[in-house]
C-alpha cells in the first residue's frame, strides 16, 4: 500500500498535456459527467476524503451544504495561498501535476453547480502562477474547460477557471479572508455565521477547498470510493503530501498514505537527523499546530484522529523537526514573530496579544525573564485562543501555550539565569531603559 500515489504519481512530464491525457487524464471528469451532481457528492462523502487545508473537514459534507435550489450564481474557490511555515506542498502540484488539479476543479464545479472557480495562489509563487496559467490556457485551447466543454464531454455544463494572484498575506489562507481578497476588499476575515455556503463571494453560495483536496477528486471518481477509502487510516483515508523540513537529512515533500508512523516518516523517508542527534521537538502539521516532545514520538501516527489523541493536529502535514541542540525559546519567538507580523489587526486579542507574547519571548532570549513570565505567556495565549473572528488567533496561541507546557523544564533553564527586574508591570519592564540593568546587579 505504501506505493500508492494519487496526487503526485511517479510519471515523468505529467505536467505536459499529452502525457497527462495518455496516463488516464480527464477519465474522472468523463465519468463524472455521466453521473448526477448528487451522485458525485455521495461518492466523495463515502470516500471519506477530508480537507487538506488544516481543519480536515469532510469534503463531501462541505459540498452538500451548498443550496440545491437558488437563483444566485455559485462559486468555487480553490485555496492555494499556502503560507503556513513548514508547508510547501501545493507548489509541487502546480509544478508537476497541474492538469489533475484543473480536472478536479471541473468535477467539483459540476458537483456543487458552480459556473466560476477562482484559483487563489499566493503572490510569491509567481513562477508557479505562470506554470499554472500555461496549463490552464492549454486546457482552454483543447476545449476541456470553458464554453467548448459540450463538444468534449457531451454535457450542457460549462465552467470557467480564473487564477487570482495574492500579494503576500498569510491571512488570505483563511477562507473568508480569501473571499474578501478576491472581491478586492481589505482581506479581513468575516464573522461566521453566515457560512460561505450561504453567503460567500459577493453574497453568493461559495465552497472553498484546498488545492490538494481538489487534486484528489479525479482519482476518487475514476477509481471509486471503495478503492480510496481502503488507503491509509480508516477515519482519514487517502494519501497526504507530507512536507518534511528542519533538521532532517532529506527534507522535501513525500506522498504517503495517512496513518504512517511519524518516526518512520522522519527516519526512513527523511533519512534521520543530521549527525545522528536526538530529536527534541517535532511540529507535525505546520507551525501553528501544537508541538510534540521528541521523547514521545513512538507510535504517533500521521492522520487527523491519531494526532488528536497524541495532543496535536494534522494541519497541512508540514513536519518541522528540531534536534537536541535547538534553542526552543528562539524557535518559539520566531514563530510568534510570524503571527505578530501576519495578524490582520481586526480583533484586539490577536493584534495585541501576539505583540505581547513576542515581547515576553524576546525578553526570555535576552536573559531578562523570570519564571512567572512563562505563566504570563500561557495566560496571554489562553486569552487569545477562541476570542477572535478567525483561527489565526488560535494558530498564534497554540504553539506558545503547548510548547511552554510541554517543554516547561527546557524553558525554566532559559529563565533561571535571568536578572530579576523589580518592576510590577511585566510588559513595561522589558523596556530596557526603564530600569538601568547595572544598578540591579549591585
Amino acid at each position: 500500500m505504501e506505493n500508492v500515489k494519487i496526487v503526485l504519481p511517479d510519471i515523468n512530464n505529467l505536467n505536459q498535456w499529452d502525457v497527462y491525457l495518455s496516463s488516464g487524464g480527464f477519465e474522472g471528469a468523463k465519468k463524472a459527467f455521466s453521473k448526477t451532481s448528487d451522485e458525485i457528492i455521495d461518492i466523495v462523502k463515502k470516500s471519506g476524503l477530508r480537507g487538506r487545508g488544516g481543519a480536515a473537514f469532510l469534503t463531501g459534507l462541505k459540498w452538500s451544504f451548498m443550496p440545491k435550489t437558488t437563483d444566485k450564481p455559485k462559486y468555487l474557490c480553490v485555496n492555494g495561498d499556502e503560507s503556513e511555515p513548514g508547508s510547501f506542498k501545493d507548489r509541487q502540484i502546480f509544478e508537476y501535476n497541474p492538469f489533475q488539479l484543473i480536472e478536479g476543479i471541473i468535477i467539483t464545479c459540476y458537483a456543487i453547480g458552480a459556473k466560476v472557480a477562482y484559483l487563489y495562489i499566493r503572490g510569491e509563487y509567481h513562477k508557479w502562477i505562470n506554470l499554472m496559467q500555461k496549463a490552464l490556457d492549454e486546457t482552454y485551447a483543447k476545449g476541456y474547460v470553458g464554453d467548448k466543454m459540450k463538444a468534449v464531454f457531451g454535457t450542457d455544463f460549462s465552467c470557467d477557471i480564473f487564477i487570482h494572484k495574492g500579494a503576500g498575506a498569510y491571512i488570505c489562507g483563511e477562507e473568508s479572508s480569501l473571499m474578501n481578497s478576491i472581491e478586492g476588499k481589505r482581506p479581513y476575515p468575516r464573522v461566521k455565521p453566515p457560512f460561505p455556503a450561504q453567503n460567500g463571494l459577493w453574497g453568493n453560495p461559495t465552497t472553498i477547498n484546498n488545492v490538494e483536496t481538489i487534486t484528489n477528486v479525479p482519482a476518487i471518481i475514476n477509481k471509486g470510493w471503495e478503492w480510496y477509502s481502503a488507503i491509509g487510516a480508516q477515519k482519514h483515508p487517502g494519501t497526504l503530501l507530507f512536507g518534511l523540513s528542519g533538521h532532517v537529512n532529506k527534507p522535501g515533500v513525500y506522498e504517503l498514505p495517512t496513518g504512517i508512523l511519524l518516526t518512520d516518516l522522519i527516519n526512513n523517508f527523511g533519512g534521520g537527523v543530521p549527525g545522528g542527534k536526538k530529536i527534541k521537538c517535532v511540529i507535525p502539521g505546520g507551525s501553528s499546530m501544537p508541538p510534540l516532545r521528541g521523547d514521545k514520538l513512538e507510535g504517533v501516527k500521521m492522520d487527523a484522529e491519531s494526532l488528536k489523541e497524541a495532543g496535536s493536529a494534522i494541519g497541512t502535514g508540514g513536519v518541522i523537526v528540531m534536534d537536541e541542540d535547538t534553542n526552543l525559546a528562539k524557535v518559539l519567538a520566531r514563530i510568534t514573530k510570524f503571527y505578530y507580523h501576519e495578524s490582520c489587526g481586526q480583533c484586539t486579542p490577536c493584534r495585541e496579544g501576539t505583540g505581547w507574547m513576542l515581547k515576553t519571548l524576546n525578553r526570555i532570549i535576552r536573559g531578562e525573564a523570570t519564571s512567572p513570565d512563562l505563566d504570563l505567556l500561557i495566560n496571554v495565549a489562553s486569552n487569545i485562543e477562541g476570542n477572535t473572528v478567525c483561527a489565526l488567533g488560535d494558530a498564534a496561541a497554540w504553539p506558545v501555550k503547548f510548547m511552554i507546557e510541554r517543554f516547561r523544564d527546557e524553558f525554566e533553564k532559559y529563565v533561571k539565569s535571568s536578572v530579576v527586574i523589580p518592576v510590577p508591570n511585566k510588559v513595561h519592564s522589558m523596556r530596557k531603559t526603564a530600569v538601568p540593568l547595572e544598578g540591579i546587579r549591585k
Partner: protein
Amino acid sequence: MTNNKFLKSMSFKFTEENLKRIEQARKKYPTSLAAVMDTIYIAQEQNKYVTHEVMQEIANVLNVDPVDVLGVVHFYTMYFSKPMGKYHIQVCTNVSCMLRGAYEIWDKVKDKLGIDNLGVTKDGKFSLEEVECMGACGYAPMISVNGNYYENLTKEKVIEILDSLQ
C-alpha cells in the same frame, strides 16, 4: 492649498497596453473592485512603486473609491510605496529556514550590501527585505531575487549569487 499631492499633478497614466491588460483582468470578475489587486500589480510593474497618485489613477480607471485602493495597497506586503532596488533580495528567516541557518545568510547579505531590512543601496541596485515563509521550507535556506527562488543555499553560494547580479 498645501501639500495636496493627490489632486495637483496627475502625471501617472497607464500605457495603452496596460489598459488592455486591466480590461482583461476586469473580465474575470463581476465587479470592477475585484480587479484592484491585478491592477495594482500592473501599476507597480509600470511605475516600480505605488504612490498616492498611482492609486488615484487606479481608482479612476476602475471607477472605485481611492480609499478602497489605499486600503488594499497598505494591507499587503508585495506592494511597495517607495522605490526598491533593481534587484529586490528577499531572505526568508522563518522557522524551517532558521533551523537551517537562515540568520547566517541574512547577516551575510546584510553585511555584503550594507543595508538593513527594507533598505536600498545608494546606487539603487539592491534592496533587501526579511520575509516570512516563502514556501520553500524543504529547500531551506533560501533567498528570492526579484521573485526567483534560489534554494538550498550556503553562505558561499549567496555571495556568488549576489556577485553575479549586475
